[in-house]
């Protein structure tokens, strides 16, 4: 497998993860979507110095990993490219905000460091939550749920098609890199001189295929809106799940569990 084929394989692997079965996979997509949105909203709402209060929010993703049987390793492996980018966001905070906030074993820790760590943790938590949603819900079920929430059909179709087209483009890229390497043995990557024509070809080929794909959709009566997969109707169980999740998030938000626990030990 060359690099591109690997990338393609990973993409399809998400579909496979989503097709597994577990108590979490069995929930209706709407419940998962709503609880994830609530989770992200609560995580984002934490103040930039509330690092210790934020830590207990890890509880939810950890629970989900356990219940869904999705390996934590897979999550971090898949996110290995975006994760550093998200983490980099807070990197400059320590330089701007130097006022000491607390002392750890005699070393003063500045507000900047705390806010940097908080931001990083927020990023990681949000990514984990989104990953878990994607890994436990097939993309079309997710789209169907988005439609039910009255997200404009245009946007949802765009999301779905982008997801499909990324696959198409990666496939073309795989074929092309293979053809290139067969004729340029021993070369690492693709030589700069070929980048222009390579990219041009890739675009043309992907466009051709995208057009065929679109034609094929139109020939089967596609116009304007997609008939999304029939998603499972929400049961009381799903409602209970969503409410419990939201209650948990609010509890963790309003009650500083970490300092409570810490307090227990100190006293």
């Amino acid at each position: 497998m060359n690099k591109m084929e690997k990338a393609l394989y990973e993409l399809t692997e998400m579909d496979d993860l989503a097709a597994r079965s577990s108590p979490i996979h069995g929930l209706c997509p709407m419940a998962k979507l709503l609880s994830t949105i609530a989770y992200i909203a609560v995580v984002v709402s934490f103040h930039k110095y509330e690092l210790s209060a934020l830590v207990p929010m890890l509880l939810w993703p950890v629970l989900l990993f356990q219940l869904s049987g999705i390996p934590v390793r897979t999550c971090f492996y898949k996110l290995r490219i975006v994760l550093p980018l998200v983490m980099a966001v807070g990197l400059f905070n320590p330089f701007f905000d130097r006022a000491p906030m607390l002392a750890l074993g005699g070393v003063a820790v500045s507000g900047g460091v705390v806010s940097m760590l908080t931001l990083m943790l927020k990023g990681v938590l949000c990514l984990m939550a989104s990953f878990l949603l994607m890994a436990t819900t097939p993309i079309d079920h997710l789209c169907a749920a988005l439609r039910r929430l009255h997200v404009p059909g245009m946007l949802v179709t765009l999301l779905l098609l982008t997801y499909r087209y990324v696959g198409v483009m990666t496939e073309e890229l795989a074929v092309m890199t293979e053809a290139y390497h067969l004729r340029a043995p021993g070369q690492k990557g693709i030589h700069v001189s070929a980048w222009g024509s390579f990219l041009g070809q890739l675009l043309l080929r992907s466009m051709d295929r995208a057009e065929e794909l679109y034609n094929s959709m139109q020939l089967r009566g596609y116009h304007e809106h997609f008939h999304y997969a029939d998603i499972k109707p929400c049961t009381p169980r799903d409602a209970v799940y969503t409410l419990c999740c939201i209650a948990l998030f609010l509890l963790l938000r309003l009650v500083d569990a970490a300092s409570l626990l810490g307090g227990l030990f100190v006293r």
Partner: protein
Amino acid sequence: MIELKNVSFSYEKDRPVIRDLSFRIAEGESVGLIGANGAGKSTVMKLILGLCSGEGQVLIDGEQLSKANLYRLRGKLGFVLQNSDNQMFMPTVYEDMIFGPLNYGVTREETDRRVDAVLDRLGLQELKHRHNHRISGGEKRMAAIATILAMEPQAILMDEPSSALDPYNRRLVINVIRELPQTRLITSHDLDMILDTCSRVILLDGGRIAADGPAEEILRDRALLEAHRMELPLSLSR
């Protein structure tokens, strides 16, 4: 069922691909459209499906294809693309099969009934919930045919249905095509397959009809075929 009247078409100016083409295919007929590479076979398909339009008239069931009735008339036609990868864009075979019928307003129950009937008939039940990117080329072609059959079209158009298939899968596809009750238009340069599946053959060259007649007759005519850059079917060359 399908009729072309003096159709001409060109992709680029001054390079006509289809020139003054006229033919008519009756209900239930199975017609092979043959010709060398670049003869314009795929373009004829696109014209019939309204994916491109030129001069002249294309009639489906006596109605001229136009923007207004495109959606309705296309519901009568099922098109199996040459490249099944471009046809199967949903995650699983099942989801691809329900796509067409649902778009045409068929109810969910009826759609599910059709899907199972088609899969049973083609012996593909096993593929139903498989992922499209994890099935072999031959299985994918069969699944692509199944998605079209689930739409229950009156006519089926297939562009090179046997290309890139191994002999076993090619045989499977041929057997399926032979048993279809619908009107069929099949392009191919696999003349053995055309011989097995079609009763009539239209030979295209340079966007014009070079011959039109019973399959047995045209496919046996060595001089005619060679004049248009083709060879006798293997089964008839001995």
